């Protein structure tokens, strides 16, 4: 392609910024409005949430992948800076599952707009991302949105914001992204307050990858921010972490539609393609350098780390014939999502499937939804679990210390006599809530084995509570419970904490003496009975009667803690073939035979796959 020539901006005329906001607080609307006010989008092509490209993003009102928009802006402010500026908006994901991606995108900016709904107030997710922005040393511009709403309480919310970032409530910008009121002032503030990027055009080229996206026609598109030096189309690049080397085929900026460009200098934001086949070759956080002599002496930008799954779940095709299709789908999905992992596993109950690792629950939901939407595979998913560190009793490593293994699937847990202790991942949870719900929320957190770390009043009526909680306790229905006991007013966010030991046991569920691996779960000893009882009762309801009595037991090791019995079936015959109508009877039997073929066999017990699905869908029993 031939490069058109967008104007070249000197580094002191560039401002890179992002917007930190909670879902629904108007981030996408503000971005849309900025695109319009800088006349970048033809009004006829304007659509809501212009930057969110995936259907799932638009439907859920969330941003999963980072997007960028280059906004040329004529600054008319009173000072001597008046003139043309280049504002680069880097639209980041907002969810806790993607906090690493968020932190990289934040590192590509110098400033952040803290956008808060004037009616809703600060939310835990906003605060978590705000802390990430502060850690990245960004200039924060506080903005109150939706001031036109009748329920808006701008003064209260402005005070909440200032209690965290400091400053005067009167300095908080008040806008309505919907009507466009105040949006110009936001753009002016970006020019005035966000520092220009620092970087040297003469140093060796270095750029930060803050996102990479798979495109079926062009390979992986790498979103990057230049720190030092200049990149020109045709240059041969080398990625520090993965070692990938190739020539830059395409170089472009988004304004906001992709526009080719010949070269990008310090402080600029762009996208490149270099025949990269999968996103795992160009990971978020990696540093782009120029290949060739001297490449090794260029230091990587700080902060790179491998994506680490937090939540695991077994994915099985409902119809076992779909297994190869599922494998292909997971392969394809991994081309554009390097943060999710999978490896084959087998389950006696569910057949062949995959144990998949996700960054969090939202990530899990998104992957499953994409499998369904893009590949049309109906799935059975096992209850989400976490990865445990298991310290073995009689095995030692080279240093003489007890050997430690990682267990992501409860069925891989060694027998109790081999285990010295089990450690589980914890998180530091931040909960923001109106003060009248403090009591019930404390009760909930304590029921989930939480330890309170701090409790602060942001204002007289809004409280920030911090708890250390086992991750395994919050990936089931914790958020639903929290929402229900606070009538939807609480918000939650969390960050990873340390591994900690607790009295954890594996509860197995046995059908006619055979363990049903899909239902094994690692739970706290005090919750084991409840879990076991809930599971056996539910399975007794769901599993059809067999030719013989079938005991369903929950057990810790060899010890049975709960038991139910499915009584043998006694009747399975149509009493009458009326009026010589045998065809109907035969057709009914043939239908039943089709059903029988689909049955999953656990030992000698036949279980319709729907029974497993139903038992798994209702999730782990409540544990408080």
């Amino acid at each position, binding site marked *: 392609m031939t490069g058109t020539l967008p104007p070249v901006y000197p580094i002191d005329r560039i401002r890179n910024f992002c917007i930190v906001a909670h879902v629904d607080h108007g981030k996408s609307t503000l971005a849309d409005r900025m695109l319009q006010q800088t006349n970048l989008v033809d009004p006829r092509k304007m659509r809501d949430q212009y930057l969110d490209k995936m259907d799932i993003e638009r439907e859920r009102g969330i941003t999963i992948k980072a997007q960028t928009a280059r906004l040329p802006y004529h600054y008319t402010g009173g000072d001597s800076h008046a003139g043309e500026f280049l504002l680069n908006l880097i639209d980041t994901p907002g969810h806790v599952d993607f906090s690493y991606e968020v932190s990289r995108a934040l590192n590509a900016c110098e400033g952040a707009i803290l956008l808060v709904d004037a009616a809703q107030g600060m939310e835990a997710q906003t605060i978590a991302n705000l802390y990430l922005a502060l850690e990245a040393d960004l200039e924060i511009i506080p903005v109150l949105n939706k001031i036109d709403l009748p329920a808006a309480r701008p003064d209260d919310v402005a005070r909440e914001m200032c209690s965290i970032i400091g400053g005067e409530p009167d300095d908080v910008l008040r806008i309505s992204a919907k009507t466009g009121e105040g949006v110009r002032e936001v753009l002016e503030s970006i020019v005035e307050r966000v520092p220009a990027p620092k970087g040297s055009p003469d140093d060796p080229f270095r750029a930060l990858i803050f996102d990479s996206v798979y495109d079926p026609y062009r390979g992986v598109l790498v979103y990057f921010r230049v720190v030092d030096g200049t990149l020109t189309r045709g240059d041969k690049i080398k990625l520090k972490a993965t070692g990938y080397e190739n020539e830059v085929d395409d170089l472009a900026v988004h304004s906001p539609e992709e526009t080719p460009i010949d070269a990008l200098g310090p402080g600029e934001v762009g996208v490149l393609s270099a025949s990269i086949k999968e996103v795992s070759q160009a990971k978020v956080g990696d540093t782009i350098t120029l290949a060739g002599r001297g490449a090794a002496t260029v230091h990587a930008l700080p902060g790179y780390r491998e994506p680490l799954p937090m939540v695991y779940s077994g994915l099985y095709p409902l119809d076992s014939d779909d297994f190869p299709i599922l494998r292909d789908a997971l392969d394809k999905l991994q081309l554009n999502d390097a943060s999710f992992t999978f490896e084959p596993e087998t389950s006696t109950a569910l057949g062949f499937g995959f144990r998949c690792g996700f960054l969090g629950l939202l990530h899990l939901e998104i992957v499953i939804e994409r499998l369904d939407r893009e590949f049309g595979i109906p799935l059975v998913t096992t209850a989400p679990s976490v990865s445990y560190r298991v310290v073995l009793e009689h095995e030692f490593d080279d240093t003489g210390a007890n050997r430690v293994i990682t267990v992501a699937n409860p069925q891989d847990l060694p027998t109790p006599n081999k285990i010295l202790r089990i450690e589980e991942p914890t998180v530091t949870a931040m909960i923001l809530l109106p003060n009248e719900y403090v009591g019930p929320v404390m009760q909930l957190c304590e029921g989930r084995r939480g330890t309170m770390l701090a409790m602060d009043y942001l204002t007289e009526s809004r409280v920030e509570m911090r708890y250390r909680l086992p991750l395994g306790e919050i990936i089931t229905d914790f958020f639903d419970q929290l929402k229900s006991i606070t009538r939807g007013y609480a918000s939650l966010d969390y960050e990873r904490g340390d591994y900690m030991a607790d009295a954890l046991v594996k509860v197995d569920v046995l059908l006619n003496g055979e363990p049903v691996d899909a239902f094994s779960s690692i739970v706290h000893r005090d919750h084991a009975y409840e879990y076991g009882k809930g599971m056996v009762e539910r399975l007794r309801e769901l599993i059809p009667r067999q030719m013989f009595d079938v005991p369903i037991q929950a057990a810790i090791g060899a010890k049975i803690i709960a038991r139910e019995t499915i009584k043998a079936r006694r009747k399975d015959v149509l009493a009458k073939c009326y009026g*010589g109508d045998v065809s109907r009877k035969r057709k009914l039997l043939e239908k039943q035979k089709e059903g029988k073929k689909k049955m999953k066999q656990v030992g000698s017990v036949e279980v319709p796959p729907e029974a497993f699905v139903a038992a798994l869908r209702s999730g782990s029993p409540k544990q408080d």
Partner: protein
Amino acid sequence: MDERWMADPVECGTAAGFGIYVHIPFCAHRCGYCDFATYDDQHDWIPRYVAALRAEIARAGGSDRPVTSIFIGGGTPTLLPAHHLAGVVDLLHATFAVEVGAEVTVECNPETASVELFERLAASGVNRVSMGAQSFAAEVLKTLERQHTAERPLEAVAQARQGGIDQVSLDLIYGTPGETNDDWEATLRQAVIAEVDHVSAYALTIHDNTPFGRRVSQGTLARPDDDVQADRFDTARDLLGAAGFEHYEISNWAMGSRARSRHNVLYWRHGDYLAFGVGAHGHRDGQRWWNPRAIAPYVTAVEERRDPASGSEVLTPDERAEERLLLGLRLREGLHPVDVPPIDPLALEDAIAHDLVQTSSGRLQSTEGGWFLLDEAIRRLT
């Protein structure tokens, strides 16, 4: 596949005999559980229906194959005026080669019974009546929406005997919601006291497309419990067995083998039968066909001299094999080895190991315990 079992049968298939089924689709009241082709609001059709039925029968004549049984079912055949009903039987005799001593059954509801009716039917060669008693417990009859009192069936049986009918069977239903063990035992005792020579006892089945089906799905009627029905089945076996009845088919008991319903046995032995009237199903050597369930299209077709059949199928050897088993194993006698279709030896071994079927007598038979689980046995064997 060795298809000797089809070509050269000992008892089954063409060897089983040749029957005629005639359907009368009128009832004074359509009971809530009923999913048969029957109507309680179309009595205006009776004259045209009988005429159409006669025309259909007359046109089918010409076969000299001996007819071994005739069954006139419903609905309530005895709702027809006696001369209409007897006239149909007369026409069958005139049209087909009905064997001397052939079984000729008419279904009857107790409230329609009278000595005169039975005399008229007997004069036309009817020698067996199947009386729809269903229960002798007033509450159960009410639930089932039956139109007669608990006492009426005994009286009706006596009237049949008096009218010259040789064989009388009682139809019973068990496992109705609200029925107690005592109700069922009392009903069975009444059947014994009635001195009938045949009892049919069916577990109440709920069909989705009936008023009972809708009430069950709404939760206003309890779904019959499988365990209760299995208990009632056992009670019937014990009580009727002790009274001298032979349990010759899952739902049928006879006082001695001569009292078995030959027409029903024909069905279970995979035999051939013609079918006349709405909703009637016929079978001949692996071909099945059936008439429409609604009266108007049936009558119109016959009046326009068209074949009224609304559907048919030719069974594949596999389908015939499946039918042979699902029908034959309903009979205590089971299947003669020559009439047994090929079965996967492992499947047979499995069904025997689960005590569903046995071969120890040299025939393939259901076991006592496996009888009420016959569908499971068939799913394993085919």
